[in-house]
């Protein structure tokens, strides 16, 4: 089954890995929408489990990358699959998947809220969990966890 994916999109699939019991494909972001449509219609992956963002901070080999991780599930074949696609931080645009599964509506908004990933074609791309005018994208690795303006917690006592 997974060979069909490789056969249909030969140049889009960049890497394939097997983690524990799940096969994981890293694909090019431009063909992500077509791949998902192919998986849903041809390979019977009818259920989108989750969609989340990732941030790979810059190392000496590569620049800052933002990633998108999608888990799909085929009920009939009892099979799960993971798809990953990366994009440079400077160009965080992805196509929206709300036309394939409406469940991705809020998942994409959450990815936008946390990482700044934009989804072209999304009906309502606003922040969902933080306040609308929140100035930064908090799940990125360079954003601190604690609120820097709080004055009642003594960082030295908390081991920070």
């Amino acid at each position: 089954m997974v060979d069909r994916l490789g056969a249909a999109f030969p140049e889009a699939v960049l890497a394939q890995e097997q983690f524990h019991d799940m096969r994981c494909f890293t694909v090019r972001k431009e063909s992500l929408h077509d791949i998902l449509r192919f998986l849903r219609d041809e390979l019977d992956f009818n259920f989108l489990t989750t969609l989340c963002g990732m941030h790979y901070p810059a190392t000496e080999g590569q620049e800052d990358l933002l990633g998108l991780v999608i888990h799909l599930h085929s009920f009939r074949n009892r099979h799960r699959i993971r798809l990953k696609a990366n994009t440079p931080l400077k160009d965080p645009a992805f196509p929206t998947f709300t036309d394939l599964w409406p469940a991705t509506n809020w998942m994409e908004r959450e990815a936008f809220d946390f990482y700044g990933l934009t989804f072209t074609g999304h009906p309502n791309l606003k922040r969902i969990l933080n306040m609308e005018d929140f100035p930064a994208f908090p799940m990125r690795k360079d954003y601190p966890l604690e609120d820097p303006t709080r004055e009642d917690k003594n960082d030295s006592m908390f081991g920070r």
Partner: protein
Amino acid sequence: MSTGIAKPDFWQHDLVPAAEHKELNVLNLGPTHPATHGIFQNVLTMDGEYIQSAEQTIGYIHRAFEKIAERRPFYQITTLTDRMNYCSAPINNMGWHMTVEKLLHIETPKRVDYLRIIAMELARIADHIVCNAVIGVDTGALTGFTFIFQDREFIYEIFEEICGARLTTNMGRIGGFERNFNDIAWRKTKHFLDYFPKKLKEFENLLMRNRIFMDRCINCGPFPLDRALAYGFTGPNLRACGLDYDVRVMDPYCSYEDFDFKIPIGQNGDVYDRFMVRQKEMWESLKIIRQAVEKCEKMSDKTTFTADVPEWVLPPKEEVYNEMEALIYHFKIVMGESDVPVGEVYHCVEGANGELGFYLVSDGGRTPARVHFRRPCFVYYQAFPEMVKGIMLSDAILSMSSMNVIAGELDA
């Protein structure tokens, strides 16, 4: 005169002109509302009593779990998972432990699995009690709520015997449990299995064939199955729409394949079906707990409560004070210096609301590189505007409470 309210920008006018010389009303079902059982906001555009559209705002209790989890060692993240679906905290705890065990290739012995199942099914009963009692309250039937909450206290007592806490249990450890179930816990569990069926039947008799309840709930907010799948419904809400998808059967974990239980499904996904699915699931959970207790009694080994992984399981204190290796292991575990393989894993459990998934990416350090919680409430609450389009406000309130939206799980 208050100026501090965060008025959403889509709330431009209080009356929205519509076709046929009708004016639509805009009603704010605000974050603080007695009937929403959680803090999330809905701005409803209404044609009299009928809802035309709903704009949702969530995030009023966003506590940045995924960000906190990147700064905590694996065993400290259990306390975060407690607070997601706080009505059934042990299920979240066990799900997280199983995810980490999957990453670390730890296999738990059968007895640990059965003990976990007892805790998880008790938590499932506790959550369904809350949901069903609250559906009753929203139709006006407060008696069921006051009757059945007494039994929820008993489930809390069993949790206290197992782990010491009532609500945010932090139950279990990576590899098993922190201590064996003591005699009192077994005695209380067996007593629960004896007396709770009578109480559940009493609760059912109040509501299940009650004329008023049935008239309120049947055909209230029905949802077709294909839309439910497209919206990512899982759990009792999906089973009420007619599909028997249960993670315990689809991808069995924690030795659920050794147990014999049915999956109740509904027909048209309305409030009555969701109520009945949860009700029947409580009966099935009682069956599972009974089987687990019997299996544990039949086993000759009554002392194993954790897997044999000294790297991750704290040794007993007598050994720590007397033996060198135990001391070193204790130090390594508490300081988070045990070796963690690089990799990523996705594990899901059947939470009380649906498929609760944990996506864990590890880069070998003592804290995860990324943790993503696939929260069922967050996914299926998106369908609320479609579910309530064209129905009356009181039916919408009932739909919302029958979906069992728990704010902690919604916002994480």
